[in-house]
């Protein structure tokens, strides 16, 4: 198996221990090829790094603004809210 073939398939199976013939060949190639090992390792770290960036929670008031927007679109009666929400931020 060549590096190009490994490149095409390791991405699909970054961490999975598949037992197919192709996966056995990939593992065999990886044991012998320092470049492909380095590439696979850096891909795994890439994914880990991107996963480590936190994504924000729903902003305060967004839930109430949603129900106001739904009502403005004739979708939904406005629910009772615990506090007065900001007005609907937008909608054409």
């Amino acid at each position, binding site marked *: 198996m*060549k590096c190009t073939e490994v490149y095409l398939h390791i991405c699909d199976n970054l961490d999975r221990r598949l037992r197919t013939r192709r996966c056995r060949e990939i593992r065999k190639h990886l044991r012998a090829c320092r470049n492909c090992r380095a590439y696979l390792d850096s891909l795994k770290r*890439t994914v880990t790094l991107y996963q480590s960036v936190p994504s924000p929670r729903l902003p305060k008031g967004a839930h109430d603004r949603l129900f106001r927007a739904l009502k403005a679109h004739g979708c939904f009666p406005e629910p009772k809210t615990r506090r007065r929400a900001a007005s609907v931020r937008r909608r054409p």
Partner: protein
Amino acid sequence: MTGREIKKLSEGRLIAAAADGDARAFGEIVRRYEQTVYRYAFKLCRDREKAEETFQDTFINVYRKLGSFDGRSRFSTWLYTIVTNNCLMRHRRRKVREIEESLEALESPETSAEGEFIHEIARWDETPVDLLLDRELRDHIEKAIGKLPPEYRIVFTLRDMEGRSTEETARIVGITSEAAKSRLRRARAFLREQLTPYMAHPVRRTNR
């Protein structure tokens, strides 16, 4: 049904009740999925205001189309599809062609006629935990993912950040599994390239 009973309803019964016009059931659907929808919208839009607009559009569409949800796919798959379409509609108004050309070039590292990599692939040094918290690196990561065209960012987000399978990702985006794999491969290669200056030579960064 009381509010407490609605909270205990299974997903299927909740959807059926909401589709029949039960406003509290729809409210419970929103409560269960609003964080997921907002976070996914933010990962695609990379902007809080656009994410909230997509979040609103998504639940308006859910309300209007709930009756047509046939249960053949998982509800979350259907929901992801609506968020994705809303996000794509926003992005189609902008041109994003330039970066796609550079993604084509990342199909694979340069190889010889025999299919071996020509250049040595730089090894990445160990990633200390505090590096993950480094503000500069985080900003760099945010910018890099923002550079990805939405078609690639969506596949990367669904597969690597939301943990969806290749098949489900393909269904959500409306492409074949092979196309989903190809986009994922290019997206990862692009993001890897963006990080290589940091990861292959981390010593340089300590001098700032």
